[in-house]
């Protein structure tokens, strides 16, 4: 599937995207690239149902441009990030609070794609808005140091005591300057960074990055490599979905279930480690193919999968009839289908609210068209329980795909095609456990000049503050776990 690139003016961009949106396309992302000291290029990504992902460019002045958010609410967070990274003001943006990098002035910014940035930029929390209004209303800060072993993020829960009328999300604490880090690296170096953008979705990020680079090379990936990629991507999906199940059980205080699912997840990670040497599948995917065959025989892999399923399936079945658990999830954190569609919610969060999109099915890659993955397309209640049901069924389907991929695998041929990219820009995508991961990679002379990763965590976290209608403080951990997001992929 190829990506089309078109050009428009910054004043026409919002209308253009809105028209595409009204024609049934999904807003998939927006990033900017510094062109020179006084200009930047905005690139919006639109996904066509059942088709590829197309890019629309607009050259804008570096100082300000007309904001997209008033016409396209899904761009809300994206424009805040553009302001954080470039100091550019989107005119008419409803609330341009810092998101991933609060800085006191607009002049000194990292400006990805442009000249090297200052050696150090310290976030300044004085520029953040703190507003609490109303009788008896108070703000409870959750984080940045959370209770339990979690990634650092601050949720400001504004509450009169029990309800959660408003939630502010501050992921900037763990901003690592990822986008700037890619610049100047060769393709192998870029892959190492991509694997660490969102470490729990290592394989999906490596795949989306590799797909973007392969789009510039024009070489097909060997069929065996496509199968090995599916094998690892699906194992990663199972591990991530089990992590969500585990955290939901933990929130409900189901001690035995926490222990059981912790054990199942550990077995999956160990299996991945035995297959490739890394418990997170690092080093498997390389641009052009994979780095080597699985280190386990077909029989050994099949036997281990059988053992894991024999223990896991009864636990999942029991969980789905444990009423004290289901009662906590039913109706909790509802994301209405209309809102999910408007925002273009991704992954299990989107599919639980009726968004029928899955990159493995809609815009298949590697061995997926061959294996025919099934998409969960009959859930639309949009609550935490729906998100759990989607994940449980995806675990089942992942086991089938792994089996099918392993059965067809013949590693006698080459496992990687030589990959020498032409200069230019490539777009790549992959379906992580969290949802669609997108990479835009600009290459000149074999070196990366700009790389903009867009994780599903970033896109979906923007919805997280909106789903507490009717929920109370004690529902917070359930809703958070049911989104299943990684902050590393948000703060970049």
């Amino acid at each position, binding site marked *: 599937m190829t990506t089309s690139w078109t050009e428009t003016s910054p004043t026409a961009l919002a209308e253009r995207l809105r028209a595409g949106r009204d024609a049934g396309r999904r807003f998939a992302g927006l990033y900017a690239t510094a062109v020179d000291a006084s200009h930047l290029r905005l690139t919006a990504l639109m996904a066509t149902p059942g088709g590829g992902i197309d890019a629309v460019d607009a050259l804008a002045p570096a100082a300000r441009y007309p904001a997209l958010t008033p016409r396209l609410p899904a761009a809300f967070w994206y424009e805040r990030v553009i302001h954080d990274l470039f100091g550019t003001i989107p005119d008419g943006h409803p609330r341009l609070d810092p998101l991933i990098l609060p800085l006191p002035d607009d002049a000194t910014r990292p400006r990805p794609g442009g000249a090297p940035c200052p050696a150090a930029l310290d976030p300044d929390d004085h520029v953040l808005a703190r507003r609490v209004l109303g009788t008896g209303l108070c703000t409870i800060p959750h984080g940045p140091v959370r*209770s339990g072993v979690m990634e650092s993020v601050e949720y400001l829960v504004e509450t009169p005591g029990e309800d959660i009328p408003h939630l502010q999300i501050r992921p900037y604490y763990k901003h690592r300057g990822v986008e700037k880090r890619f610049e100047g690296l060769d393709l192998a170096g870029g892959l190492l960074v991509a694997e660490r953008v969102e470490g729990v979705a290592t394989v999906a990020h490596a795949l989306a990055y590799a797909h973007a680079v392969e789009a510039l090379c024009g070489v097909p990936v060997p069929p065996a490599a496509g199968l090995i990629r599916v094998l690892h991507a699906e194992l990663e999906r199972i591990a991530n979905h089990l992590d969500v199940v585990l955290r939901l059980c933990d929130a409900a205080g189901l001690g035995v279930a926490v222990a059981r699912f912790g054990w199942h997840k550990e077995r999956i990670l160990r299996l991945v480690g035995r297959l490739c040497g890394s418990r997170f599948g690092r080093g498997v995917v390389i641009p052009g193919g994979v780095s080597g065959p699985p280190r386990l025989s077909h029989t050994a892999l099949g036997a281990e999968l059988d053992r894991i399923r024999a223990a896991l399936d009864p636990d999942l079945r029991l969980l789905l009839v444990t009423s004290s658990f289901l009662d906590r999830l039913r109706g909790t954190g509802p994301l209405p289908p209309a809102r999910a569609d408007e925002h273009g919610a991704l992954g299990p969060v989107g599919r639980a609210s009726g968004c029928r999109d899955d990159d493995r099915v809609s815009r298949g890659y590697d061995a997926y068209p061959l294996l025919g993955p099934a998409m969960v397309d009959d859930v639309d209640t949009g609550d935490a329980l729906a998100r759990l049901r989607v994940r449980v069924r995806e675990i089942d389907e992942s086991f089938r795909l792994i089996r099918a991929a392993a059965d067809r695998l013949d590693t006698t041929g080459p496992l990687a095609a030589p990959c020498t990219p032409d200069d230019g820009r490539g777009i790549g995508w992959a379906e992580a456990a969290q949802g669609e991961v997108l990479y835009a990679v600009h290459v000149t002379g074999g070196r990366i000049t700009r790389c903009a990763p867009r994780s599903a965590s970033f896109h979906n976290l923007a919805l997280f503050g909106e789903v507490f209608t009717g929920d109370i403080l004690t529902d917070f951990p359930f809703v958070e776990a049911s989104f299943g997001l990684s902050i590393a992929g948000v703060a970049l």
Partner: protein
Amino acid sequence: MMWLLRGLRNGVLTTRYPARPDPYQNSFPAAVAVTDAGRQPDAEQVADGCPTGAIQAAPDGRLFVDRGRCILCGACVRARPDLFAWQPGAATATAHRGTLVVPESTETDESLAALRAALAARVRRLRRSVHVRHVDAGSDGSDEWEVNALFNPVYDVARLGIFLTASPRHADLLLVTGAGARGMTEPLRRTLDAMPRPIVVIAAGTDAISGGLFAGSYATLPGVGDTLPVDVWAPGNPASPFTLLHAILLALGRAPTDAGVRR
């Protein structure tokens, strides 16, 4: 009731480590070793091939690997199998930053022994019951999975008197992951201030030790060593659960020694 029975179904799943070695410890590559300690004419060139600068060339041409910077990408093992090799075994944590440089560290045995003795004196009262507070200072998310794994039934560190605590006021041991994001400097410092003395600090993972791949970014410090008084360094990207457990036991003076297993 159903869950109670389910909990009994598979018997004891827990490792015997540290009382006995666990076979899984040695079944995956945990570090890079230098197999040729001799002088290499192209040492500088070999060192340049490392994406994080973990390979260092001495002026006389000998090669060293700084495990505190190594992200286990394996580029060196693939390019020069005559010089580098994977090394299994999870006992890679050390109580001194310098000893992460292999094959030999510049530290003398006496100074290391003094360091260990000072640490042992500090943690004497914590030995049998220690409460851990974890803080993420800019990780990629995988480090948290490995820390969480310590509390699953396979590792079950509660059997060793190691517990997780939500409040820094109850914590004895600060376990820090992540590359030292500048935004986390102040929260880290405040967490440390809130902890009662004595404190043990563990830098968990290559990112926390040196910044890893993100060292030199405008948004991170090179690891957490400048912000916190780190006692134990646990390499790995991320550090595996066995490495983390080894690091905690090392901090408490309870790590299994070569001479014999001690608890």
